């Protein structure tokens, strides 16, 4: 069965304290993996797409990496505005089946 597990469920950091969020997935026929951030009361905001193991993407303080079984979202020197829920969403199969986990809720304290 296709599934995704994100850890930790919740993370509290001090401003400037770098860390990584983990996404473990078991998906048959992976056709890409998406990272989104979601703020309370808003829709998910697209961050990155990764298609193959070894691929990396960067945007400001965020860097996403992909292996055959995991993806990591590295946050370097986070700021309070990085506080959000981060969702890792593998895309499985030909009919675009997105596998949703519960996300990691990140709080960055000033």
């Amino acid at each position, binding site marked *: 069965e296709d599934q995704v597990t994100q850890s930790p469920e919740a993370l509290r950091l001090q401003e400037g304290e770098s860390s990584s969020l983990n996404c473990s997935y078991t998906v048959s026929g992976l056709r890409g993996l998406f990272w989104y951030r979601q703020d309370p009361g808003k*829709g998910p*905001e697209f961050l990155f797409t990764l298609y193959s193991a070894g691929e990396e993407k960067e945007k400001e303080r965020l860097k996403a990496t992909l292996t055959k079984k995991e993806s990591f979202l590295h946050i370097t020197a986070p700021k309070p505005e990085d506080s959000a829920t981060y969702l890792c969403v593998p895309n499985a199969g030909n*009919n*675009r089946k*997105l596998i*949703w986990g*519960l996300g990691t809720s990140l709080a960055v304290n000033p």
Partner: protein
Amino acid sequence: GEEVAQTPKHLVRGEGQKAKLYCAPIKGHSYVFWYQQVLKNEFKFLISFQNENVFDETGMPKERFSAKCLPNSPCSLEIQATKLEDSAVYFCASSQSTNTEAFFGQGTRLTVV
């Protein structure tokens, strides 16, 4: 448009009433998706369209839920005879293809009382 537009933002319905939600996808995107978010972060897939054709409807509760994407009109999701458990935020998303990222609207919060 450059973003997915969902209306209304909030909708309150009495149990048994009809609810209709609208979504205008990003121009040029062929695929439209509807999701239901009930609990924190749990996204339940409902239905997807490729242009005006149903692409995947495996998530739709067929008895009371229906959806359409007609040319030159916003897509719609309709719930007949709403129940308390239909209370949720409904998100619409669109993408260019099945392999590319989807962009989400801000959601419609449906409250059934």
